[in-house]
C-alpha cells in the first residue's frame, strides 16, 4: 500500500517510542542491579550484586522452590489436560458436554475466591505450608485452561489419523502418545509456556500457603526481600532481575508461542 515517506518515518518513531517505554523499567532494574550497592563504592559494573543477592538474599532457596513448583505444576497439569482433552476431543460419552462446561467455568474463578477457604481447610488438616498446598490449586487452575486448550486441538485433529493409527493396531493410549501428541507439538508447546509463565509469576497462592521461609517461591521471596532491605536498592534490583530471568529467557526463545497463546485470549 502506498504511503508517504513521512508517514513511514512517523510510524517508526511511534514504534521506537513505545518500545522504549516498554523497555525502560526493565533496563532500569538491570542498571540498578549493576550499580554499586554501598555509597562510596567504586564505579564500574558490579556483577557481584547478583552473587550477593543469590546468597545473602536467599534467592538460591527461592529459585529452587519456584523451579520445583513450576516443574510439578507444568508437568502434572499438562499430563492431566492432555488426557482430559483427548477424551473430550475424540470420544463421545454421556455427560461430556456438562462436564466440559463445569471445567470451563473453573477458568473464570479467580484465585481470590479459593485461597480463603483453601487456607483454613488445609490448615485444619495440617497441610498448609506444604508443596501440595502451593502446587495443587495451581494444577487445578491450569488443568481448567489446559483441558479447554487440548480439547480444541484434539477435536480438530483428523479423524483419518486416528483411524489410520487404529488400523495399524494402536490402542487409544498409543494413539494419544505416539501419534496425536507428537503431531500436536506446537499446540502443546504453547500450553506449556503459558502455564509455566503463570506458575512462575503466581503470587497470591504461595503468599497465603507458604508460611515458612523455606517454601517461598521467587516472586514471594522478592516481595519479602523488599520489605526487609529497603536500603540496598541494587541488591533488590539484582534479586528482581534473577526472578524475572527464567520467564524472560523462555519468552525470548518462544515468543511466538507466548504471543499466540495470549492473542488467543487464553490468559488472565
Amino acid at each position, binding site marked *: 500500500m502506498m504511503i508517504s515517506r513521512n508517514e513511514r518515518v512517523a510510524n517508526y518513531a511511534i514504534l521506537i517510542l513505545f518500545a522504549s517505554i516498554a523497555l525502560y523499567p526493565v533496563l532500569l532494574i538491570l542498571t540498578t542491579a549493576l550499580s554499586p550497592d554501598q555509597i562510596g563504592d567504586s564505579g564500574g559494573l558490579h556483577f557481584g550484586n547478583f552473587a550477593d543477592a543469590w546468597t545473602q538474599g536467599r534467592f538460591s532457596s527461592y529459585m529452587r522452590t519456584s523451579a520445583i513448583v513450576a516443574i510439578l505444576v507444568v508437568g502434572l497439569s499438562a499430563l492431566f489436560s492432555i488426557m482430559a482433552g483427548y477424551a473430550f476431543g475424540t470420544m463421545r460419552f454421556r455427560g461430556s458436554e456438562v462436564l466440559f462446561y463445569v471445567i470451563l467455568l473453573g477458568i473464570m474463578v479467580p*484465585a481470590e475466591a479459593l485461597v480463603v477457604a483453601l487456607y483454613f481447610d488445609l490448615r485444619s488438616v495440617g497441610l498448609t505450608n506444604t508443596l501440595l498446598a502451593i502446587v495443587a490449586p495451581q494444577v487445578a487452575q491450569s488443568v481448567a485452561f489446559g483441558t479447554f486448550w487440548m480439547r480444541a486441538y484434539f477435536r480438530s485433529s483428523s479423524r483419518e489419523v486416528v483411524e489410520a493409527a487404529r488400523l495399524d493396531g494402536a490402542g487409544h493410549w498409543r494413539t494419544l502418545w505416539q501419534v496425536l501428541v507428537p503431531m500436536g507439538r506446537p499446540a502443546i508447546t504453547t500450553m506449556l509456556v503459558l502455564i509455566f509463565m503463570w506458575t512462575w509469576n503466581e503470587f497470591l497462592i504461595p503468599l497465603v500457603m507458604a508460611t515458612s521461609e523455606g517454601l517461598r517461591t521467587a516472586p514471594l521471596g522478592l516481595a519479602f526481600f523488599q520489605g526487609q532491605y529497603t536500603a540496598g536498592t541494587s541488591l533488590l534490583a539484582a534479586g528482581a532481575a534473577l526472578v524475572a530471568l527464567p520467564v524472560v529467557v523462555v519468552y525470548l526463545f518462544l515468543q511466538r508461542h507466548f504471543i499466540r497463546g495470549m492473542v488467543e485470549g487464553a490468559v488472565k
Partner: protein
Amino acid sequence: MSSMVGTETAAREAARRRRPKGPPGEPRRLAYLYILPALIVFVTFIGLPLFRSATFSLYEWDGLGSSTWVGLANYAAVFTDPALRGAFIHALVLIVFYAVVPVSLGLLLAATMMRAGRMRGLGLFRVLIFLPQVVPMVVVAIAWRQIYAPEGPLNSLFRAVGLDAVARPWLGDYTWALPSVGLVGTWVGTGLCFVLFLAGMAKVPRELYEAARLDGASPRREFFAITLPSVRGELAVALTLTVIAALKTFDLVYVMTSGGPGNQTAVPSYEVYRHAFLIGEVGTAAALALVLTALVFVATVIINRIGDSNDGSAPAGASGIRALARRNRSGPPVASSDQPGPDPDLDDAGPEPEEPAGSDDPRQQGRGR
C-alpha cells in the same frame, strides 16, 4: 488421477462438515478414566473451595475461635461499608487505566501501523512491546516503585524541565497514588492490546482498503468503517483480559502501596487478603471474594456479548488453534509424527472460517490468575 483427488477432497469436505457436531471418535466408556485425574484435582481444589468460601461467607469468624452464623450480613457489609465499597470504586478507576486506555491506545497504534502495510522490523517491535506482559508483577512493582520514588527518575525528569511543583512522592500522595498504580496497568496492557489488534487487522483483505481509498474515504472513515468492525473479536478478547486483570489486581498493590496511603489504593482482592489473613474477618473476606467472582463472571459475559454482536462470528481465538491443527493435518499423517509442526506465525494466520459463537466463548477468561 483427478477423480481420485476429487473424491478425497469430497471426503475431507464431508468429514469437516460432520466435525462441528461432536468429537470424531466412537462412544467410549473409557473416556471417564481419561478425565478422572483432571476432574479430581478440579473438584478438590476449585469446586470444593468455592463451595466452602460460600459457606464461610455466611459466618462471622476470626479464623481461630468459634464462628457465628450471620446470614447475608457479610454481603450487606460489602455493599454498605464505605471502605469496602471504596475498594470496588478503586477497581472501577483501575479499569480505565488497565482496559480503556490500553485498548484505545492499542487500536490507534495498530491502525496507524496497518496503513503502512508490511513494515520492516515489526516483528522485533512486537516482541519488545509485548515484553511487559511476561515480567513477573512483583518485579514490575519494584521497578515502578523506583520510578515513582521521591528522588526517582520521574521526579528528576520533572525537575529537569523546570516543573518542580509537579514532583511529589507519587505513591504516598492521596490524590495520585491510585492513578500511579493504574498507570503501571497501562504499561502492562498496552503491548498486549497492540499485538492483538495488529494480528486482527492483518486478516483484513488489503483490497478493502484500496477500494475505500479509491472511493475517497478519509483515514478516519476507513478506521470506523473497515478496521474497527474487523477486530471486534480481538476487541472482546482484549477487553476481557484487561478488565479481569484490573478487577483482580493484587500483586501490584501488595508490593507498591499495601493499599495506602490511607486506603486510597485498596482494591477488592487486596481487601480479601487483608480481611482473611491480617485482621481476622474471614466471613467478610469470603463474601468479598464471591462478589469479586460474580463481577468477573458478569464482566466476561457482557464483554463477550459485545464481541459476538449480531453477525454470529466467533470472537477471534477459536480459529487459531484450529488453523494450527489443520496445518499439521496437511502433512503425511502418521509418518510426520516426528517432525515439529510448522511454527505458527500470527502474520500468516489468514482468514479463518468462523464458527457459531457460544460454545467456545469462555476460552477468553484465562484461568483467573
